[in-house]
């Protein structure tokens, strides 16, 4: 397993370098376009070819900890920052880079070529990859903060008052959650003297019962987790971010926040393995998010806001998988994160296309879209079926596994909850589908200049991916399950 691969940090370093490069080429459109397309191909290529293993920064090996002097609980520790790369990281990285690529392609296609804008997308890509790869809890914290700033920059680029307000709110609560994550790390450092997650997990296992300071650290880190993944008290803030960004950026933002949810929940479970109360608390907040998100999604009359609430409630469903806490359920949760990210991305790309074509996303004013863009309407119908868990598609596989895991863990009520959520999602999105594509009497004019060949290609590729995962789920599910079992949480 100890394979000191230099390709692993490149997944973080290369996007950062490219972001700086693109940032300097602000006015030169052609070179920005060329560099971003080339670097996107490289970004997708690197995670595929990298072997599993760990990377030790500056080659610091695991060494003895001098237990008599340092009073550490374990005999040997990592001396530097460590990045680890396993099967789950590989799958998540590939999905993340592909959807980032699609977003950048749509941004370039819309003639919005701005070096700074693409630089922010690259920085958010770099920080999300670092969050998923980092085996060091402080490195993780630093990149969550960078991610918040990059996401706010992407949202306020819309130059709309509502997006400024959403960005400001996101930053205000980001300060609270960032400080609480940092304080949690500080308390853990004070109690155990370690920052590496593997070492910390071993030390906490060796230390036995958690003392009150470590328990405060748990609650502070849990608050940070709720913010980063947009669960219960922060669901409105996250939803505001999604709805006020450009829809293709929302497609990227929801991928990032769901993957950060998965990464941080894995970190929490690894560090505090065997602490059952944490799982129950996560489950409680996840159920709250699912209920509020789906109920609010049904009320909306604006496509982007509706999709934002659906995205939030689906994030809650991923967290339900983590909250149940058996390895089967956690694997199902991670699998659902991947499936849901793909089908939500289709819906957000369709929202982006609708916004370009009809200049509005208010459901009242739209209508008769099926005559104008039949292909997009058909794909949206398929995506609706996919996200609400209808058999040939991918979400069916993960939701079925979630229900099974809930029944195995002795809480079959949660299975009913999953079914109700998928019904609510279906009703909410099929309403939007009807009002955009089938309702007679549109009140808006069609922008005939927008042909959207790029959008159509992207959504067709994504829906075919959804179908492929739905037909052959084990290609993705089995590595995830083995990884979760090897974590031993």
């Amino acid at each position, binding site marked *: 397993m100890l394979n000191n691969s230099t390709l692993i940090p490149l997944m973080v370093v290369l996007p950062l370098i490219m972001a700086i490069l693109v940032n300097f080429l602000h006015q030169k459109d052609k070179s920005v376009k060329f560099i971003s397309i080339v670097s996107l191909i490289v970004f997708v290529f690197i995670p595929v070819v990298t072997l599993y293993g760990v990377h030790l920064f500056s080659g610091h090996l695991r060494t003895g900890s001098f237990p008599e002097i340092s009073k550490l609980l374990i005999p040997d520790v990592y001396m530097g920052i460590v990045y680890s790369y396993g099967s789950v990281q590989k799958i998540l990285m590939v999905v993340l880079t592909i959807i980032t690529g699609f977003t950048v392609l749509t941004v370039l296609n819309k003639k919005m070529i701005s070096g700074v804008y693409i630089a922010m997308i690259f920085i958010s890509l770099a920080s999300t990859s670092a969050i998923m790869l980092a085996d060091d809890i402080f490195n993780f914290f630093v990149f969550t903060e960078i991610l918040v700033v990059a996401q706010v920059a992407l949202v306020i680029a819309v130059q709309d008052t509502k997006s400024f*307000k959403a960005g400001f*709110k996101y930053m*205000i*609560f980001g300060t*609270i959650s960032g400080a*609480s994550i940092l304080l949690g790390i500080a308390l853990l450092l004070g109690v155990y003297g370690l920052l590496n997650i593997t070492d910390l997990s071993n030390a906490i296992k060796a230390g036995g019962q958690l003392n*009150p300071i470590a*328990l*405060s650290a*748990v*609650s*502070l880190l*849990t*608050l940070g987790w*709720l913010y980063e993944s947009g669960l*219960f*008290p*922060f*669901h*409105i*803030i996250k939803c*505001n971010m999604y709805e006020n960004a450009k829809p293709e950026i929302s497609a990227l933002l929801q991928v990032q926040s769901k993957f950060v949810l998965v990464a941080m929940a894995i970190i929490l479970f690894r560090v505090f393995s065997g602490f059952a*109360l944490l799982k129950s*608390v996560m489950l409680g907040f996840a*159920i709250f998010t*699912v*209920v*509020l998100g*789906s*109920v*609010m999604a*049904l*009320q909306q*009359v604006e496509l982007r806001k509706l999709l934002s609430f659906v995205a939030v409630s689906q994030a809650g469903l991923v967290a339900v998988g983590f909250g149940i806490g058996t390895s089967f359920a956690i694997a199902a949760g991670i699998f659902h994160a991947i499936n849901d990210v793909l089908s939500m991305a289709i819906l957000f790309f369709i929202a982006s296309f609708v916004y370009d074509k009809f200049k509005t996303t208010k459901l*009242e004013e739209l209508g008769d879209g099926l005559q104008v863009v039949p292909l997009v309407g058909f794909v949206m119908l398929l995506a609706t079926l996919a996200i609400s868990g209808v058999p040939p598609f991918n979400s069916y596989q993960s939701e079925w596994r979630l229900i099974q895991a809930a029944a195995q863990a002795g*809480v079959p*009520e*949660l299975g*009913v*909850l999953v079914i*109700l959520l998928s*019904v*609510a999602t279906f*009703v*909410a999105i099929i*309403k939007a589908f*009807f*009002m955009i594509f089938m309702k007679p009497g549109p009140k808006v004019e069609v922008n005939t200049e927008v042909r959207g060949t790029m959008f159509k290609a992207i959504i067709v590729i994504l829906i075919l991916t959804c179908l492929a995962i739905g037909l052959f789920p084990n290609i993705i599910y089995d590595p995830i399950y083995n990884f979760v079992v090897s974590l031993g949480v």
Partner: protein
Amino acid sequence: MLEKVYEIFHEKMKDKGQGMGIGSALTSEFLMLSFLLIGAILVLRTANSTILGFGALIILGGILFTVPTVFKVEKENTDSINLSSFYVALTLALLFVIFLGGI
């Protein structure tokens, strides 16, 4: 019975959309009630402490008296920053109480 419910919703949603809006509001009302029922069953079945059980029962009773719940949920989930701040402070306090107090 259902006509009465429809009338109530019609009255409450005069300034918003009619027809399809009322349909989705009714759907979300039923969903909300079933979610609450499931949550109450879950808490009552798995909770070890009597405080949690009684709390769940009281909350369930309180909510059943405030039907229709959807409008109240919508009022609590606006974009307001003060309301979000209140819920964040509440969550922070709740997390400390749960983890340090150990319900």
